[in-house]
């Protein structure tokens, strides 16, 4: 039987742009160009490697977001995923992580899955908890923050490095995994891959398709509210000296002045 892999990806504002907020204090997704979150490329890569090592596998890439989020799906398809699902609904604007996990969990169940693969965090919200929430909602094992992952005989295993220890984890499928940026460089789409992606199917779903009410998501359905957002004042550039033999001494004097030595 075919191994059904769903990769969750996010279309995010480019981190090198001037990111900011809308009047509603949600992430401004208009004024900075978007792209497939860099950290999700690692998820696509690991899904491809798992599929390549399986007898038979199919990779569906899933996103929730506005129309432009289609670009993120195309990128993943051009890397080699087989098909895509895009959940797009006007009522989703301002959805928090709980609403997002509800939408994605329903979509994953609708698509059918043995393995869900996520990145370690998005590069905009950076909470890093969506994979854990998906596991909680789907009622399957959470095998997260892996720097190495493999799937064989209905079991997923991997290594999770944390501050205190390096852990070897194992769980039976179906399961939700997330992979870190230590899991291996993501491949670049080939020209052939880019051409092939144009013909791959992208299914669009709305909230009704997923049996979700508008009140459960969006800004109104969010369980947190941002009271205010303040731009951090730019750091004022201090003294810069060019080392002509005295640089270290000048730096030491600065550190002494600030009472670090």
């Amino acid at each position, binding site marked *: 039987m075919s191994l059904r892999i769903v990769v969750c990806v996010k279309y995010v504002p480019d981190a090198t742009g001037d990111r900011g907020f809308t009047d509603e204090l949600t992430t401004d997704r208009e004024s900075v160009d978007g792209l497939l979150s860099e950290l999700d490329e690692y998820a696509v890569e690991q899904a491809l490697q798992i599929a390549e090592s399986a007898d038979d596998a199919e990779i569906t890439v899933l996103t929730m977001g506005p129309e432009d989020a289609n670009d993120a799906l195309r990128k993943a398809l051009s890397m080699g995923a087989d098909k895509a699902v895009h959940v797009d609904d006007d009522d989703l604007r301002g959805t928090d992580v709980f609403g997002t996990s509800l939408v994605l969990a329903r979509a994953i169940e609708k698509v059918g899955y043995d393995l869900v693969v996520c990145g370690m965090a998005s590069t905009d919200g950076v909470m890093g908890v969506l994979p854990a929430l998906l596991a909680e909602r789907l009622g399957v094992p959470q095998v997260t923050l892996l720097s190495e992952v493999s799937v064989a005989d209905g079991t997923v295993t991997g290594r999770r490095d944390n501050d205190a220890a390096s852990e070897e984890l194992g769980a039976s499928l179906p399961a939700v995994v997330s992979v870190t940026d230590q899991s291996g460089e993501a491949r670049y789409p080939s020209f052939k891959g880019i051409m092939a992606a144009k013909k791959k199917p992208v299914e669009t779903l709305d909230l009704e398709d997923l049996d979700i009410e508008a009140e459960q998501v969006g800004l109104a359905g969010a369980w947190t509210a941002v009271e205010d957002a303040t731009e951090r004042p730019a750091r004022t550039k201090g003294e810069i000296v060019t080392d002509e033999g005295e640089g270290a001494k000048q730096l030491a004097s*600065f550190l002494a002045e600030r009472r670090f030595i």
Partner: protein
Amino acid sequence: MADVLVLVDHVDGSVRKPTLELLTLARRLGDPVAVHLGPGADTAAPTLAEYGAVRVLAADAPEFTEYLVVPKVDALRAAVESVSPVAVLVPSSAEGKEIAARLALRLDSGLITDAVDVEAGDRGPIATQSVFAASYTTRSRITSGIPVITVKPNSAAPEAAPAAGAVETLEVTVTEGGGGTRVVSRAARESTGRPELTEAAIVVSGGRGVNGAENFSVIEALADSLGAAVGASRAAVDAGWYPHSSQVGQTGKSVSPQLYIAAGISGAIQHRAGMQTSKTIVAVNKDEEAPIFDLVDFGVVGDLFQVVPTLTEEIRTRKG
């Protein structure tokens, strides 16, 4: 006063500093009740009491170490049911955030992660976060359920406030199968003898300019002269020169020390995300155009292999 749950981060009963910061912050919201999972509650209790824990709820079961995350969510939920707290504070480690998220979902509660400050508000706790690579500061509030907030290390100075801190047993029913993710083996990380990166008052980091694993000894020597932790940029980690556990930046640790010294680091946005809330920043880089110099309080344009060892010597001399 109402109770505030604080999940204790400890190693066999030795309480880690971020927990003391959480207890200090919790006192702004109510009476801290510590939740100690795993062995060593009796060892930890006096420290927890010293920093304000009115009670210590303790549970120990093999599942806490044999399975990932879920048994601790079960325990924290049991604590919430027994105490009915006004808020739950959890250390912002990778595991802490996952525990907090699953707990919040079970409680139909909102979640705020990576807070750098927490204060009481008219409509519940207000948490401050640093977002978009620390270019913005937001203040947020939870609008549904019992607020669950994860707090980053170095968010408050721990203040002692002795309380009773008696240990009570917390009854926990662990999810069948422990949630299904077995911890097959665990290799403890070797201690470097240096302060924890996220907790250190001073951090010295090396980047691409260090140009080789063997050259990191230059960075370590400077760190040791200052009693500092050692960090590394992603470029240095990806090159295999220094372990990922020491990576500072968006996908590594985010640090906010009193002093951050960047040596041979250009200062890409991903790195700045992890260090630009540091109080004082200095940099040594041979490229005067490096973006890191836009952030510094003091910068030296020069060869780090000249400047850093001389600086280390100078510090040792001055410190006698």
